[in-house]
């Protein structure tokens, strides 16, 4: 008699647990996807502002101190966004679609933080350089590029 109760109870508990975890995963997935799109938007903004500076640096467009200053302060602001809510654990290449974030971001959190701070420092230097003159802008451009490369080398996975 006792067994008769236990069996359906166990089964229903199991079903509840499975359903519950599925719903939980759905929420988690959504949160991970949202964080991925948000940080990709951040990268897009970094790229947009860097392009304005870089095109002047390489002589593709004439130097304009107002545009350069604006781009540099945008870049510095975007580089400083709080990473703790953007780089959610689990939003990693191979587990979630549409991201190239390497697991090292979380396994080597200190290294990732240092790399990200590298861009903050380089962007802050660009804020004072960009409006000064073309030569100063050009001189500060290398540090921006180096920091993008260093971080992407260590923490961004292959495209395909």
């Amino acid at each position, binding site marked *: 008699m006792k067994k008769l109760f236990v069996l359906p109870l166990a089964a229903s508990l199991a079903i509840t647990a499975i359903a519950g975890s599925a719903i939980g995963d759905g929420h988690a997935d959504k949160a991970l996807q949202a964080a991925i799109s948000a940080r990709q938007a951040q990268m897009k903004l970094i790229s947009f502002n860097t*392009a304005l500076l870089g095109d002047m640096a390489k002589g*593709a467009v004439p130097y304009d101190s107002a545009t350069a200053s604006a781009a540099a302060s945008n870049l510095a602001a975007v580089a400083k966004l709080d990473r703790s809510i953007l780089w959610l654990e689990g939003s990693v290449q191979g587990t979630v679609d549409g991201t190239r974030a390497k697991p090292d971001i979380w396994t080597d959190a200190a290294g990732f933080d240092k790399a990200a701070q590298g861009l903050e420092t380089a962007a802050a230097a660009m804020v004072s350089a960009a409006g000064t003159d073309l030569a100063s802008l050009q001189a500060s451009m*290398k540090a*921006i*590029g*180096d920091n993008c*490369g260093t971080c*992407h*080398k260590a923490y961004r996975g*292959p495209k395909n």
Partner: protein
Amino acid sequence: MKALLRFAIFCAVLGVLVGLLVTRPDRSEVAFDAVTITDTQAGALVFAAGGCASCHAAPDATGDAKLTLSGGRSFPSDFGTFYAPNISTDSSAGIGDWTRQQFAQALTRGVSPEGKHYFPAFPYTAYAKMTAQDIADLFAYMQTLPADATPSLAHNVGFPFSIRRAVGGWKILFFLREYQVVGALTEAEERGRYLAEGLGHCTECHTPRNALGGLDRSRWLAGAPNPSGKGKIPNITPAALDWSETDIAAYLTTGFTPDYDSAGGEMVEVIENLAQLPEADRAALAAYLKRVTPVP
């Protein structure tokens, strides 16, 4: 019957002898007659263009530590895993006691001072195009770098690829000394070709390889799977790389694509090296790439 057996043995012995003869390491001397002075500063640029530190520095070394060429970085491939050896100035662990001639033979013949073939993970097929002056300057520069006593790691290569003598056969098939891009070239295009096909050995990663690890010259610079197994090395022939020469040269300086994405993977280190060269060299590489046969 006995005669037939004797003939078979004769053929086998002859085969082995011929095999040994044609696969013997090329120990001919590299001529330094035209080299009168050496310049360590020029050597530092040869060192950067050749990407020596990218393979021979300790794994994950950064900054000045990259000048300590203690080796140890691993290179997975279809044939096994190769480990970059210690080439620091340490006289026992490194190459501190090598003569310039031994150094030149290693670089351009792929032959060690002991007369053994090196595996072509060491890009001597490209370095073979180096000028005697560049070799001399590089040797002089590398003499100024620190010594390190870390022992070199043994390669982890399975049979039959582990037979060094077989590399002699590989060299007969695939060690071609001719340039791939030929015809009337400008001075800049020629310089770019020297850097891309020779010293800078771009072709080693960007050209696909056949089953035996020889470069597939019909798909020169047309992209290849990454030997690490992750990702692809892109096609950089004009069929795929449609950037302007200015954009290519800028990418090789800052790492930014024309869309302001940035380089990743091994290319970050390549750009770190190339950024040290005079601007004219990066422009030369861009000019060369425009002369490569487009391969879709």
